């Protein structure tokens, strides 16, 4: 029982490599683009009066929300497929 479910999960990932990769990329990109400071530790281009460093961080918040929403949608599909099998 345990074995079957565990391998069932693994095969769900194997059966839907695109979905799984999509989730992984969304999460990894979200972390990377906040972690790798050289990308955004700069003054220009400015948005209005805001230097790049500051508006980049502000805009990243809603972007994170959207990315996580997408990841959740993909994961639901992945799990739905698993249950259907």
């Amino acid at each position, binding site marked *: 029982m*345990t074995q079957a*479910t*565990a391998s069932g*999960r693994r095969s769900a990932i194997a059966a839907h490599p695109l979905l799984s990769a999509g989730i992984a990329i*969304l*999460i990894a990109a*979200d*972390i990377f683009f*906040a*972690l*790798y*400071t*050289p990308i955004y*530790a*700069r*003054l220009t281009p400015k948005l*209005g*009066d*805001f*230097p790049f*460093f*500051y508006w980049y*961080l*502000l805009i*990243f*918040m*809603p972007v*994170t*929300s959207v*990315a*996580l*929403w997408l*990841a*959740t949608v993909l*994961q639901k599909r992945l*799990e739905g497929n698993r249950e259907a099998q």
Partner: protein
Amino acid sequence: MSNVNVTTFTIVVVLFLIVTGAGFAAARWRRPQNMMHLDEWGLGGRGFGTFITWFLLGGDLYTAYTFIAVPALVFGSGSIGFYAVAYTIMVFPIVFIFLPRLWSVSRVHGYITPADFIRGRYGSRGLALASAFTGILALMPYIALQLVGIQAVLTVMGVGASSTNTFVKDLPLFVAFLVLAIFTYVSGLRAPALIAFIKDTLIYLFVIVAVFYIPTRLGGWGHIFDVAQTHFASISPTTKKPIGTFIPTSKSIGSTRFDFASLALGSAVALFLYPHAITGTLAAKRRSTVSRNLIYLPLYSVLLALIALFGYMAVADPVTAANVKKAGNSQLAVPYLFQHMFPSWFTGIAFAGIIIGALVPAAIMSIAAANLFTKNIFTEFFKPDASPELQTKMSRWASLVVKLGALLFAIELPHTFSINLQLLGGIWILQLGPMLIGGLFTRWFHRWALLTGWLAGMVFGTLAAYNVSNATALHWAASSDIEFGHTIYIGLSAVVLNLVIAVVLTLILRAARVPEGTDETLPEQYTADPEQAPAPAPAAVGATP
């Protein structure tokens, strides 16, 4: 009390009374049939939906750290303080990876604390004890930070500050704390969950007003940023170095980019290792409640980013900057800014928001620490047959003791930058990363290897933090030090050491076939989504069908 503004003071007191009333009334909210059970007192019945969970976690995660400590660091050192913004971006994708698994396995087995999970997963009482101890220890400075936040507001209000007697000076703080302690004792997690609604309303209100209104008084955002840029580039007469940075730099000496990234990453991984964050999570009704909240919570972080910018507003406002300099305490930056910019009635609303914003997380933190003590130390080692009723009584008292401990931290440690209190807690709590996050995915790690790694990380981290000195403090002056030529958050270097030891020792212990302990969890339990909360323990008094 000569310079107390009556309007401000009255509004703060009235709002505080409303919150106190709500705190006591919360005991009747979603009233259970039997309050004397840890699932009820400590987890609010494990039945909070998306909406309440959002407020509860928001109230839990955005604390005096957000409203006082982060802008204070921005005010004092500039862009490095924005690591907190990068941290609250990263935390949600990181947590997305492991938090739903923790919720599922805890729901299936009825775990109340993270240490319950450690015990069940590794079959090791020692490891569970280590994690409970770490959780309680790490919460102390975090609760202390809430006290420092309240203190900052009270100081600017002029309440008690004119007295030289320590007791009279801190009396308002003691009163606020006593009220917090009593309603937590009575209502458990329901109190902060209910008060979180009031807190968030006040905070959204004053942040949005401040963000649109204050720049119009200070000559616009362009002017605020210009002043900040010039200010942080100027040379400090004492250290002969720039006062701070406006954008993280990559210079070989004093590079702040690496420090920035390591502080952000370390804090992000640490956040949901904290027992209070896990308490807020486990109180959720369904697995989807948790993942849905990870989508909505980043919107709360926008507030944090805006609040961080208050630090620059304080720099750009000459009166505020002079006031803070005179007081010699950058924690006062935001309260002074509001006092100078807002009419006194609105200052009252903002101050009440900050005070309540510190009380809510302090309540949840003390509940989490109390649950750890009761479940994983008292019941585990001293009274294995403790009834749910006795456990709840114990937890109630423990929540009081924890708060007193935090008071000691608040008094003992230097608060030039109160943010260090939170970062110090972070150094300790991060040491649970390998056993907790690791354990959610694999049983590969050996329990003794994890324990040794944990010990090494704790000792290294504590000593390293103790040894950091600066111009004003001999010890505990900062939470970053230099490793291999880079300024890095000590929590991160300590957890790397921890992990390396855990991996190496696991290989050795596995080769030597040292017993691994029994694992009571099953793989599918990590993705399970049971609708019903687990039935209260068999011995539950007055159990109902």
